[in-house]
């Protein structure tokens, strides 16, 4: 009877699960649940045989419903499967996929952040009659099965910091990392280390993490997912979702829904469809490598067959990453490929692969990772490998690289080396002669002559910054009226006459220093040397790779309004004679949001700066984050661009980020936030999520100055606040005093 009772409870759970996904009144599931509940009430009044019959008939009915439900699953229903409390979580995986594990940095709710679980785990494989044990570090989000303290797998900044700490441990010990992504998004708070800045740090570190990494995505919510998602192989659960924003969030933006109101279900369904969030969509877009099959309605915490599959896939993916770095791998790679499409995972492996790498193999691993991410999403831009133009560009690049390597590498390095030797020799000579001449000099001084001190000479001569001959004046200054400073009430600022404000005052309140927004053209004309700007890659254009309905029109409007093809301008320019490469995200084009075109242009600018040994400035006029209409193709720009930045900084460059107006979300949480030199122009706002998202996610209100540059500086997110009027001078000083040794003028 106890068996039957368990059987009954299991059926009830399955019906409730089905209703959670498809709705309470879907295809008579409510009647079935009613019948089951009735049976539960009268359970002990029915004979065992009748009960068994009844349960079998109910199960048959349920099976028909489940099969029909699985055939008609919509993307939003997949989201519901992923969020269901009956779905497997990371702790279930640690219990069932790994042989043993020790949780690090926390236990249950006694934790730095219970939403992030790090563990040292053992995973075994059987080859013939031998069992091999592999050690791995497991890092992932733990959603819990309804426990409030898990925060739904929403990692706080310090949770992501914990993840980074254990990535370092894995690197020190040379063992692979398995990442498990189960997050609806990062917890959007700015407290140190800051949501955006910590994700950026994680991405920066992961881009050159010297161990094999495999990521498994069940719920991939934008930036939160990327914080532990930059891996050599990315697997995804067949009933998981990976998206730039939650369908509800996208619906609120698309439908311009007021705060506190719920977007209509149809709009949420529409957005879920348009965002291309399912595993099949992501595989087609190239943002993941493989799909791990689940039962038709998704795996739950007791689907042991699924855990067996997952265990097999994780081992195989790690093998694949390791084998790619080996020179002797042909047969083993073939054996792995052969197993690829198998329905049921085998109990045994044909081969054994050691997961530790030599120094040469690590270099290859990093190189392969870099290539993988650089290639991601490029296909949508139509950049083909074999076109004539492509060959010409490649030849030009090689030429440029050779020229700069010779001019600023071989020649300059040689010159520097000689200079260094000469300085050493001269230093030695002076020290030696001083021993001999010191007694004579002392005697000479004693005779009454005044000691002679030569005039101090500056060793490095700095070129003085020449003022620009003619200042560009904003067209905003052409109005004859006054405006009120937003700080007038608190600081007593008088009204400012517009021609003065946007002319002589450069948009700065003379009383309190508040910076009024200015158009990006002002910066182009007033920061860089006159006529020094040479734009490149202006033909790379933003598109609508997902075919998001209604977006083409908006995009065409933005292109017409700005006369530009994307939200980023990349150019070479000079400040005080120092040549530099600049990437500028502009507010006028879709609020400076980043999509594939913007990411590609940024990477190419970064690479150009690396090849030509120029400093690289990212000037953020405004960025609203990743462009949601490009879905995960947009999200993938976060690791892609961070990879390029990491390679540029490692090569000894100077990567400067200057924020203006508003900078939020993805870009700040990746390729901008990872810069060691981030500055903000006064009155800018920097953060991960806007006040509305914070209020809706955390349920707490944020003070009006929560995202101000002053608070960002106070929290250590930026390194300084600059006045717009001094921007040219400050940038010039930064170019002279900051950065690595591989700059052409150093």
């Amino acid at each position: 009877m106890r068996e039957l009772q368990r059987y009954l409870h299991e059926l009830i759970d399955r019906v409730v699960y089905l209703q959670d996904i498809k709705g309470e009144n879907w295809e008579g599931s409510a009647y079935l649940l009613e019948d089951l509940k009735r049976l539960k009430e009268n359970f002990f009044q029915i004979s065992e045989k009748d009960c068994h019959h009844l349960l079998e008939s109910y199960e048959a009915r349920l099976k028909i419903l489940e099969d029909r439900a699985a055939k008609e699953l919509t993307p939003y229903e997949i989201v519901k499967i992923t969020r269901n409390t009956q779905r497997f979580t990371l702790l279930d995986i640690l219990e069932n996929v790994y042989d043993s594990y020790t949780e690090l940095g926390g236990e249950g709710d006694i934790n730095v952040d219970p939403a992030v679980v790090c563990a040292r785990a053992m995973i075994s494989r059987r080859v013939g009659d031998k069992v091999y044990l592999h050690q791995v570090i497991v890092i992932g989000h733990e959603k819990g099965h309804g426990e409030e303290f898990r925060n739904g797998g929403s990692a706080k900044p310090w949770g992501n910091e914990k993840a980074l700490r254990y990535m370092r441990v894995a690197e020190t010990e040379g063992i692979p990392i398995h990442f498990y992504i189960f997050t609806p998004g990062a917890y959007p708070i700015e407290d140190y280390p800051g949501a955006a800045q910590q994700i950026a740090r994680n991405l920066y570190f992961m881009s050159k993490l010297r161990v094999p990494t495999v990521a498994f995505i069940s719920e991939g919510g934008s930036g939160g997912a990327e914080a532990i998602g930059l891996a050599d192989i990315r697997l995804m659960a067949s009933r998981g979702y990976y998206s730039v924003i939650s369908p509800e969030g996208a619906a609120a933006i698309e439908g311009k829904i007021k705060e506190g109101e719920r977007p209509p279900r149809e709009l949420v369904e529409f957005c879920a469809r348009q965002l291309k969030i399912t595993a099949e969509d992501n595989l087609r877009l190239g943002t993941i490598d493989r799909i791990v099959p689940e039962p038709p309605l998704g795996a739950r915490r007791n689907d042991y067959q699924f855990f067996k599959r997952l265990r097999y896939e994780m081992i195989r993916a790690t093998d694949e990453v390791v084998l790619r770095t080996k020179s002797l791998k042909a047969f083993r790679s073939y054996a792995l490929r052969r197993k690829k499409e198998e329905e049921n995972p085998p109990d045994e492996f044909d081969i054994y692969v050691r997961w530790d790498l030599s120094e040469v193999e690590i270099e290859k691993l990093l190189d392969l990772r870099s290539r993988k991410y650089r290639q991601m999403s490029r296909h949508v831009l139509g950049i083909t490998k074999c076109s004539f133009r492509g060959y010409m560009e490649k030849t030009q690049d090689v030429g440029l690289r050779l020229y700069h390597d010779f001019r600023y590498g071989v020649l300059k390095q040689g010159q520097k080396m000689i200079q260094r030797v000469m300085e050493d020799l001269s230093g030695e000579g002076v020290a030696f002669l001083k021993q001999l001449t010191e007694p004579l000099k002392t005697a000479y001084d004693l005779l009454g002559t005044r000691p002679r001190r030569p005039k101090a000479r500056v060793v490095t001569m700095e070129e003085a910054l020449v003022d620009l001959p003619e200042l560009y004046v904003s067209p905003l200054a052409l109005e004859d009226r006054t405006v009120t400073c937003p700080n007038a009430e608190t600081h007593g600022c008088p009204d400012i006459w517009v021609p003065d404000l946007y002319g002589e005052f450069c948009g700065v309140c003379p009383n309190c220093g508040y910076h009024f927004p200015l158009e990006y053209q002002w910066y182009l004309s007033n920061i860089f040397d006159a006529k020094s700007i040479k734009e490149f890659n202006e033909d790379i254009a933003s598109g609508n790779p997902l075919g998001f309905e209604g977006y083409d029109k908006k995009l065409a409007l933005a292109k017409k309004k700005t006369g530009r093809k994307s939200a980023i301008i990349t150019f070479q320019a000079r400040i005080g004679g120092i040549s530099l490469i600049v990437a500028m995200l502009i507010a006028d084009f879709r609020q400076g949001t980043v999509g594939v075109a913007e990411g590609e242009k940024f990477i190419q600018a970064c690479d150009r700066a690396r090849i030509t040994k120029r400093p690289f400035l990212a000037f953020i006029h405004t960025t609203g984050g990743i462009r949601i209409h490009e879905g995960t193709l947009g999200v993938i720009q976060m690791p892609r661009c961070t990879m390029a930045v990491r390679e540029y900084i490692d090569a000894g460059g100077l990567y400067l980020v200057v924020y203006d107006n508003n900078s939020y979300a993805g870009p700040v949480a990746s390729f901008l936030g990872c810069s060691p030199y981030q500055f903000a122009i006064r009155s800018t706002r920097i953060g991960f999520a806007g006040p509305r998202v914070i209020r809706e996610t955390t349920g707490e209100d944020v003070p009006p100055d929560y995202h101000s540059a002053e608070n960002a500086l106070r929290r250590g997110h930026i390194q300084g606040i600059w006045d717009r009027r001094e921007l040219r001078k400050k940038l010039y000083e930064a170019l002279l005093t900051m950065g690595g040794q591989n700059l052409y003028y150093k």
Partner: protein
Amino acid sequence: MALDNRKINQLLQSFRANPYRIFVVVTPHTGYLREFLVKEGDEVKGPSGKWLEKPGTPLFILEREKNPKTIRAKASGTISKVNRELEGRFVEAFEPVLEIKHTLTQKEIVAELLRKTLHIVTAPEKARYFLSPELAKKIEKEGEGRVVVKPGDELAIMSFMKRETPVLHEGPPMVVFRVFFSQGQMVDQGEPLFGLCLEEERPYVEKLIARVKEEWPA
């Protein structure tokens, strides 16, 4: 002036006769008063929110040098008087434009009465304040409004940058009627720390508060 029944009645009578405060809204500067956005009898709200980040109700538009400025309510209440004749005209600075009649709440009346009847000890500096241990012990034992302090008695300890200075009571022996800070709270200079009264006045102050609570709804 010593507190007695007559004085209590006088104070209460003054609030009963006029339980309002009138806020006169004046023009902050010269300009043309373009439009009134409220009319007499309208309810308006002052700034709200945890950080007063939500602005008050818009009252009128004042334009100077083609810069239309919306003047908003600084206090909640009802619009009692609007100088309609100013609409569309040039106005000088500080010209009364409208009046907001703010009905005093029970809390505000009690605060106002306490300010009038108690001897307030204010914070001499911005610092962290702790109740003196003896006083804390006495208040815990006897309750607030029962402990008498004599001249020279230690009321509180002002702590700032590990420098601790006692705050002493000056004047005649008095009862500690109210403590306005919690242990270890950072208090700005000039903010009230204690409300003291003469021992014979204590029953009257208590009676006064009780009657306010009785007469005015919370």
